[in-house]
């Protein structure tokens, strides 16, 4: 399956939920914010939300800034 993750094309396994994805790519899933195709998906829905071919995902978190 091809998705765009944080601006880059990535191949991932099919039948992944958001939770699977976050756990695969993020060391600390607790502080991650997920935006799927322009919509913010809350933590509670990650386990039930499936990632589909062609999806655009942004995984962001808070970092230092001025």
């Amino acid at each position, binding site marked *: 399956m091809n998705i765009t993750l*944080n601006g880059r094309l990535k191949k991932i396994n099919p039948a992944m939920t958001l939770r699977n994805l976050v756990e695969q790519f993020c060391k600390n899933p*607790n502080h991650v*914010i997920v935006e799927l195709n322009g919509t913010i998906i809350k933590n509670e829905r990650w386990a039930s939300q499936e990632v589909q071919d062609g999806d655009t995902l*942004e995984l*962001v978190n*808070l970092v*230092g800034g*001025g």
Partner: protein
Amino acid sequence: MITKTEIPDAPLTIAGKKFHNRFFLGTGKFRSKAALAESIAASGTEIVTVALRRIDLEHHEENIVEYIPKNVTLLVNTSGARNAQEALRIARLAKASGYGNWIKIEVINDSKYLLPDNYETIKATEMLTAEGFIVLPYMFPDLYVARELVKAGAATVMPLGSLIGSHQGLKAKEFIKILINEIDVPIVVDAGIGRPSQAAEAMEMGADAVLANTAVAAAGNPAQLAQAFALAIAAGRLAYLSKLPSAQSHADASSPLTGFLFEQ
């Protein structure tokens, strides 16, 4: 280590929250998360700015929030936004992070000087306050714009002192003074503050708070400099509260203007 700089003063109130320390610390560019944590502790700051960024998928990064005490208010900035719509998107993401809804609007469409776009900032303020965010807009000190920001619901106004990271201090001093005189929400001087003395100067002239980032993060000993900033800001505030005497011009022995009042 002095962590409190207590002076007889009313707290700074923003959107109902009281701050006893008028030093706002930016958390960018620190060499280590430990240095950041020490700087927060040494200065006693009660509000820090953070940014939103894509997670670095290649490297493990400890989340910055773990280095910020729970009682410190997080002010998420919209850095990266080049227009109001992007600022709104970042704000919504920040809110979804669960760390509150205090947003510092930073809309910059200029990679050379990093000057804020005042007009997009006004638009962004309107859009964000409509969605319930507490908005602290970073702006170039223009009185008309400041008024519009207040009208749009800004909780404070944050005029730049000089260009971000320039350490030039209060190049915009006279225009910040105008905002202090005319605008009724707290004025937080932000950007370009390179030395504690510059921060003290801002407070002496009546600013309500000062934000510094680069100066502290880049210092040889960030925690000490952060402490110096907090002390300087408290000193400047105390000086302002004691109503500095104005410079007096000397009078002549004769009274050409008012002598007539004493003639018979």
